[in-house]
């Protein structure tokens, strides 16, 4: 579906993609996770043929990129990070005009529109102007627009950023439907719960490299201690000084919160019971823990 081999890209002296290998299999939902500036969007732009790699080979839907990007994009759908719907058009016109870019006939597009509107939960909105839509509706329309050509592969760049929980859940549900229909999906995100829910496989990307690749379960099993005790409050740093080294396989502190990673939380909990100046939470390790372990806790801007 999509393959990148040894792909590199620099801007001036700054290498933003430093040798990426990626193989997308038909019918899977593949996640590209990474902090801001990790190179996720650049990877998508390279795959789309919108920018040329300095080295490496890219194949998209059987076509060499960038040379035959136009042909490859005939069977591709893209949901961009920032909505770029046409503000001068209605919902219906947005879909119609976009379908024409694919060389589709008007009657073929019009035949698909009711189905697309239903899929996007925009029935009865065909004549609405874009300004009248909520953020969630615009996202869903962007998704519907990406499906106008019935693509085999869909790229989604941070599809749920800025959406409320209801809108996010609806998008997730629709993406699952698409995978169930046999579509292949490549999505970038920095929401770990999103990746854990949707992705069959994912890669964590940082500083232009794919650090690890696997199923969410594999990554959690192989890269992080299975249990986490989060300790909050004034007493947390003091508690960590006394018990951290002894009871945690690994611990981290940010401000007044201590994260204790361990194979067995029980001994940790016993030392916390009855302590007045701390609160705590015992939970299973998740993808976010893996992500933070691999990419660190420092802010990225």
């Amino acid at each position, binding site marked *: 579906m999509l393959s990148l081999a040894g792909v590199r890209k620099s801007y001036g002296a700054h290498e933003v993609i430093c040798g990426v290998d990626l193989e997308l299999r038909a019918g899977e939902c593949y996640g590209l996770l990474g902090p801001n500036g990790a190179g996720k969007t650049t990877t998508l732009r390279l795959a789309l043929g919108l920018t040329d790699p300095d080295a490496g080979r890219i194949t998209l839907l059987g076509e060499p990129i960038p040379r035959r990007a136009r042909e490859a994009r*005939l069977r591709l759908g893209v949901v961009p990070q920032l909505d770029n719907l046409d503000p001068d058009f209605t919902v219906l016109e947005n879909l119609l005009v976009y379908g024409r870019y694919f060389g589709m006939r008007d009657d073929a597009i019009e035949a698909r529109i009711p189905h697309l509107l239903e899929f996007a939960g925009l029935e009865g909105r065909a004549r609405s102007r874009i300004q009248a839509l909520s953020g969630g509706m615009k996202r869903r329309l962007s998704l519907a627009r990406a499906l106008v050509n019935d693509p085999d592969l869909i790229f989604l760049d941070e599809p749920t950023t800025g959406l409320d929980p209801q809108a996010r859940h609806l998008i997730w549900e629709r993406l699952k439907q698409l995978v169930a229909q046999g579509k292949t999906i490549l999505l970038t995100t920095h929401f770990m719960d999103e990746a854990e829910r949707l992705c069959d496989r994912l890669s964590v990307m940082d500083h232009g490299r794919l650090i690890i690749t696997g199923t969410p379960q594999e990554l959690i099993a192989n890269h992080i201690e299975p249990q986490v005790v989060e300790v909050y409050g004034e007493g947390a740093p003091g508690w960590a000084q006394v018990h951290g080294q002894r009871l945690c396989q690994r611990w981290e502190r940010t401000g007044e919160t201590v994260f204790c990673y361990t194979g067995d939380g029980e001994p940790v909990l016993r030392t916390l019971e009855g302590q007045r100046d701390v609160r705590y939470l015992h939970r299973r390790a998740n993808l976010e823990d893996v992500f933070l372990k691999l990419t660190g806790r420092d802010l990225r801007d």
Partner: protein
Amino acid sequence: MRAKHFAAPRISTRFGQVWRRNFLVWRKLAIPSMLGNLADPMLYMLGLGYGLGGLLPQVDGIPYITFLAAGTVCYSTMNSASFEALYSGFSRMHVQRTWDAIMNAPLNLDDIVLAEVAWAASKSFLSGIAILVIIWALGLSHSPLTLWIVPLTLLIGLTFGALGLTMTALAPSYDFFLYYFTLAITPMVLLCGVFFPVTQLPPLLQQVSAALPLTHAIDLVRPLVNGAVPQKAALHIAVLLGYAAAGFYAALVLTRRRLLQ
């Protein structure tokens, strides 16, 4: 700037759908858009033509308003193409990110740039033709040769659409376009023979004028309004085509540099 930015254009026939998209938007606002585009050149032409024309003897052997009308066809076309390529083009390229959306479909930037130039020419074509219709309606010219102005208007629109788009490719914001208008468009209006014959200018400015595209447009249109075949028509057409081609290629290189990093 990379070597690839200088590659020859690769156009697909789907560029027509981008033109059609702009046409659809325009159709929704056609009447206010036409009025806005026409009011300015029409008022200049009628106000100065009758007001100033009444004080003047004939200019170059014709009534001043007829002289001015020929210049106004070109000026109106130039203005309309420039505004479309600059302000509206910038909205689509940068503000609304319409181009980004199109480049995710099976079209490339070359298709879009060509469509934008063609669209700017189409829109300015109407502005030029509207002035021509007024020329006919007021009886300022009865020559069938004025029909040649119809295709010429399209050529003039292509030229200034392409030149305008190079500015759009360089613009950080709308404010930037003021420079183009004050440093390129306004000087052309004053130096290229819209309001008075270029021969009135000092020799140095006449030489500058001879290099500017609007001069060549007017050298073609004015004789036609007067019922004469333009002299050195091939040269003037070649200069306009040259500016159009150079502008298109420059716009292509600059937008590639801007958007395909």
